[in-house]
């Protein structure tokens, strides 16, 4: 399995590298200026990508924490709690990411007034909320699914050993859930990272906005093509290892 993993990864990386190399090669011979422009802009693009990564990480932390709390309510024996979480989950799972980003960008104020002080409410925080809310719905659903995927016989065995419901969750159910939750949780993270490319639309200075600024200021079609190619490659290099790792983990828990 490790071998196959290696082969598959190697093929993907080779393809990607070949594409990039071909692009760079053609550019290097015919558009040497575009290439040097890209090299010039690369540090700025990378710092833009770092913004995307930061937004994705903070949104994921927010989504995970909120999602676990909601997930806790979604397995509660109290029916109204379950119903409320269900409405929340259905609402956010069926809302397009871009719409939520616009919504959060405009619904929250520019500044917050609290206890006589003024706090800025920066755009990146708004998009973090916009990305974190749907992520929390996904995480809540993953949590509920994982808890319910543990056979009822595990609950019975724990009950028969006189463990309480809370003890059963803590010592028996949740430890088994965490392993099962990891792959789908990482899928959510990859999806969020991709969605961070949308935040440029509400003016956050991310890698996509940076590439746009670069293209406009250069005013050259060949450079525009090259810079967006670089973006595709950058996102790929960040997301692909994560999704590969997810696949590996999925396989591992499948065979357990």
């Amino acid at each position, binding site marked *: 399995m490790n071998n196959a993993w290696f082969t598959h990864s190697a093929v993907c990386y080779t393809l990607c590298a070949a594409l990039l190399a071909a692009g760079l090669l053609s550019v290097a011979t015919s558009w040497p200026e575009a290439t040097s422009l890209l090299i010039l802009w690369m540090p700025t693009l990378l710092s833009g990508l770092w913004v995307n990564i930061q937004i994705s990480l903070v949104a994921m932390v927010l989504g995970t924490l909120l999602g676990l709390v909601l997930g806790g309510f979604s397995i509660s024996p109290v029916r109204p709690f379950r119903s409320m979480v269900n409405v929340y989950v259905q609402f956010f799972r069926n809302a397009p990411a871009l719409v939520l980003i616009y919504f959060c960008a405009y619904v929250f104020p520019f500044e917050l007034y609290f206890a006589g002080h003024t706090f800025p409410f920066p755009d990146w925080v708004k998009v973090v909320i916009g990305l974190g809310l749907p992520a929390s719905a996904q995480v809540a659903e993953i949590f509920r699914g994982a808890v319910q995927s543990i056979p009822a*016989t595990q609950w*019975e065995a724990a009950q*028969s050993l006189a463990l309480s419901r809370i003890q059963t969750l803590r010592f028996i159910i949740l430890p088994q859930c965490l392993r099962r939750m990891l792959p789908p949780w990482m899928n959510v993270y990859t999806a969020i990272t991709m969605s961070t490319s949308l935040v440029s639309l509400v003016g956050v200075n991310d890698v996509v906005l940076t590439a746009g600024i670069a293209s406009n200021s250069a005013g050259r079609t060949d450079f525009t093509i090259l810079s967006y190619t670089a973006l595709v490659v950058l996102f790929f290099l960040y997301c692909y290892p994560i999704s590969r790792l997810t696949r590996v983990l999925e396989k591992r828990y499948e065979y357990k």
Partner: protein
Amino acid sequence: MNINNHVLATQPGPAEKALVELRDVHLAFGDTEVLKGIDLFVKSGQVVSIIGPSGSGKSTVLRCMTGLVRPQQGYIRIGDTLVHKLHREREFSALRAHVGFVFQQYNLFPHLTVLQNLILSPVRVLGLSKAEATERAHALLSKVHMEQRVAAYPGELSGGQQQRVAIARALAMQPELVLFDEVTSALDPEMVGEVLNVIRDLVHEGMTCVLVTHEMRFAEEVSDRIYFTEAGRIVEHGSPDMIFQKPQNPRTAAFLRRSLGRDVDTESRFGSVCVETEIKAE
């Protein structure tokens, strides 16, 4: 159901001394009636086996005893606890701390080692120190001949080994009573013996046991009393000799004939024609 009443009436009233007492327990899942009035008594130190065809409600009787399922009607007492009146989690917990339950599918916790499976509840529920619980666990594991696999995970063990660990896990709570729910039914034939040996040892130590089993010869060997259930009712109960050698009820005889392939002495009482009709009537 005259037969049922008749059999009950002939029994000396054991209820006052019984550790376990079930009276007129009725249970339905939706429209399906599973138990239609179960009366059952287990005295302290006794081994009671419940036998009968699949789907006759044998396992459900055990589940009622520890509140894993709640009957719609009936009286269930274990020791001083009136199980049918319990509602709170803490009350059930207090009951279950004294009643061991061993499942057909072992139901070990797959993310914990054998040792961790055995010490979890003694530490968390009984409040033993980790050292005490570990010492107790080692003693029990050597009793079930699993002392070599203390650090193994359940997934690394055979079915028979897992079931022996599951028995040790139940015993780690030092229960007054152990319920065995078809504990050998999921095992490969060559592993049945090792699990039965463990139960046999337990019986010889005087543990009160209720066994739901398809192992007729084992039930006959270890039991003080046998209950034969069919379609949610106790058809007949008595000493192993009575049930296996001289069953009063033609249904019991027919069942034993099918499951033992043994000639049960019923002809003298009912005549072979009668028994044949019974079998066809099913």
